[in-house]
């Protein structure tokens, strides 16, 4: 297990290094004069030179690259062009919102997807099965941002107009301020994030479960007289979940993408929204800082998912 962790962490560090280098290269090919941007429109050439020197932009590129890596290692992601705030602070401010959306959404996504898939698999070809499959295909084809907007139109706007003020029309309330309001404001974003991906998981779980339930050891369990419920949940689900867990690791990128779009739709001032405003402002340090953060999250989460995979499937040895 330790060996596995060391190996995966090494690989993760390698990926992060590739990402960091890619980010650095992007900085350089960007048609953007950092010093000029920082100096403002009215500044003289001398001021620009001064800033350039202070930022080390007049040093050779290799030296800049090493400086940059060194700063990254110390957790320094640079400063926002727009308000000169350290990028780290920007992230700290917005992270709780994004984390709320992402975790809640992911849990809901797995919950809906897996349970729908299992239900469909236990009654193959039934009405329920076909309904699940149809819904899965429908939501699979549904872009996240469209779903979010439809929720806003139907569940917030129409419902509120009709006198049922259940769902708010966006915005965020911190958990500390009011847990109830926090929940109320996040329900629609969660479902938005969850439903689209859940459809994939419903189909995946269904297929995987059907396969597992057809195997000999399941029949053995049945012939031993175990109750159907126990057969399915105790023996079937555990084996049937392996491909689902693998896929989840791959789909974390999709999760982040969904969160960005969802935040934009619901006006949640999280990292996703931050990255969108940074784009329109051309605020490269913030964009790149967020890219690094997101990659780091994916790398770490993948290690967790792999470890989980081994727990589910004893045949997998972590080497």
């Amino acid at each position, binding site marked *: 297990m330790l060996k596995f962790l060391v190996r995966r962490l090494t690989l993760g560090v390698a990926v992060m290094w590739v990402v960091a280098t890619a980010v650095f290269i992007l900085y350089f090919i960007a048609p953007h004069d950092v010093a000029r941007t920082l100096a403002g429109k009215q500044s003289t050439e001398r001021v620009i030179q001064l800033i350039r020197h202070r930022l080390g932009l007049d040093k050779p590129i290799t030296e800049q690259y090493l400086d940059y890596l060194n700063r990254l290692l110390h957790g320094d992601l640079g400063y926002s062009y727009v308000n000169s705030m350290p990028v780290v602070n920007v992230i700290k401010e917005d992270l709780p919102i994004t984390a709320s959306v992402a975790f809640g959404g992911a849990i809901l996504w797995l919950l809906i997807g897996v349970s729908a898939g299992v239900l469909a698999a236990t009654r193959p070809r039934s009405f329920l099965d076909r309904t699940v499959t149809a819904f899965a295909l429908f939501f699979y084809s549904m872009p996240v*941002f469209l779903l979010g907007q439809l929720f806003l139109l139907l569940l917030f706007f129409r419902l509120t107009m009709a006198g049922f003020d259940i769902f708010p029309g966006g915005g965020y309330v911190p958990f500390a301020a009011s847990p109830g309001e926090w929940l109320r404001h996040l329900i629609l974003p969660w479902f938005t994030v969850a439903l689209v991906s859940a459809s994939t998981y419903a189909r995946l779980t269904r297929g995987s479960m059907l396969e597992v339930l057809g195997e000999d050891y399941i029949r053995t369990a049945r012939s031993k007289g175990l109750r159907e419920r126990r057969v399915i949940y105790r023996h079937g689900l555990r084996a049937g979940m392996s491909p689902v867990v693998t896929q989840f690791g791959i789909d974390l990128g999709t999760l982040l993408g969904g969160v960005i779009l969802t935040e934009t739709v619901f006006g949640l001032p999280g990292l996703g929204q931050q990255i969108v405003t940074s784009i329109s402002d051309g605020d490269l340090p913030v964009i*790149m800082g967020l890219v690094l953060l997101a990659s780091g999250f994916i790398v770490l989460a993948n290690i967790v998912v792999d470890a989980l995979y081994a727990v589910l499937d004893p045949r997998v040895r972590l080497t």
Partner: protein
Amino acid sequence: MSQLSAATAPPEPAEAGLSEAAKKIEGRSPWQLAFERLRRDRVAVGSAIMIVIIALIAIFAPLAKRITGHGPAGQYRDTGLSPAGIPVGPNGMFWFGTDELGRDVLVRVIYGARISLLAGVAAASIAVLVGVVIGLAAGYFGGAVDTVLSRFMDVVLSLPYLVFAIALVSVIGSSMQVSIGVIAFFSFSSVGRIVRGQVLSIKEKEYVEAARSLGAGNMRIMFVDVLPNVLAPVIVYVTLLIPLSIVFEAALSFLGLGVVPPTPTWGGMLSDAINYYQVAWWYLVFPGAALLVTTLAFNLLGDSVRDAFDPRYNRLFAAEE
């Protein structure tokens, strides 16, 4: 010995009945068989017709301009906006209503189909082309080539692609070509992995060995003997990659990173609509429906194509390997 006595026996009936079977001389290829199955699949035929209709609408978009008299970027502030400056709903003049600038939503949705289809098909094609070549090389040559290519694909796959796409586009600048390139870049890896996995098993087949024993070179084996056998899963994947690319493009446009306004795109319209859905539901619903119908049609077709090629294959979304 049984073999010896059988040696003098008359030939088996199956081999004797050649002349009768010869009536149907042209064999049907596995492709033809799959196509036959597709043609009998009502969902497949329906969604294919839908896709053709959408494509025709996109191609003949200028006709819509002729009929309605509204250009895709034309602002009709007198007829298209209420006195208070609010978009007008569907009516005889604007069938799908107007947007906040008094533009015809119908005409814009029709023109938007061009961008969506073009971006979707182009990005998926590039991704498949690159993915097939890389997957073929990785699987066929193995060793260091495989290690390098596979690791590269793994890294690309594990990146948070939308975040990266945002970073890339914000540096390079947004345009149709950039969108297509970025979408293709983040899609080819999954094609590459599928192809690689297939090639790994096919290259162990005896017919590959047979080709080698005849003196065939690597290129000939890769493209004559291996490639045709990996195409089925690739074709299945393409039909599913197109809607993914369409959604990806729409997402980029939605974030303001796609095709530059005022060129109408579905994603861009949805992005603008977010501020107006309370007063102009049509602004949100029509482009949204167009997007949904398109992706749904492609996904339904993709599903049927998969069934046609391999009726047993029910793990479409399973991770490879």
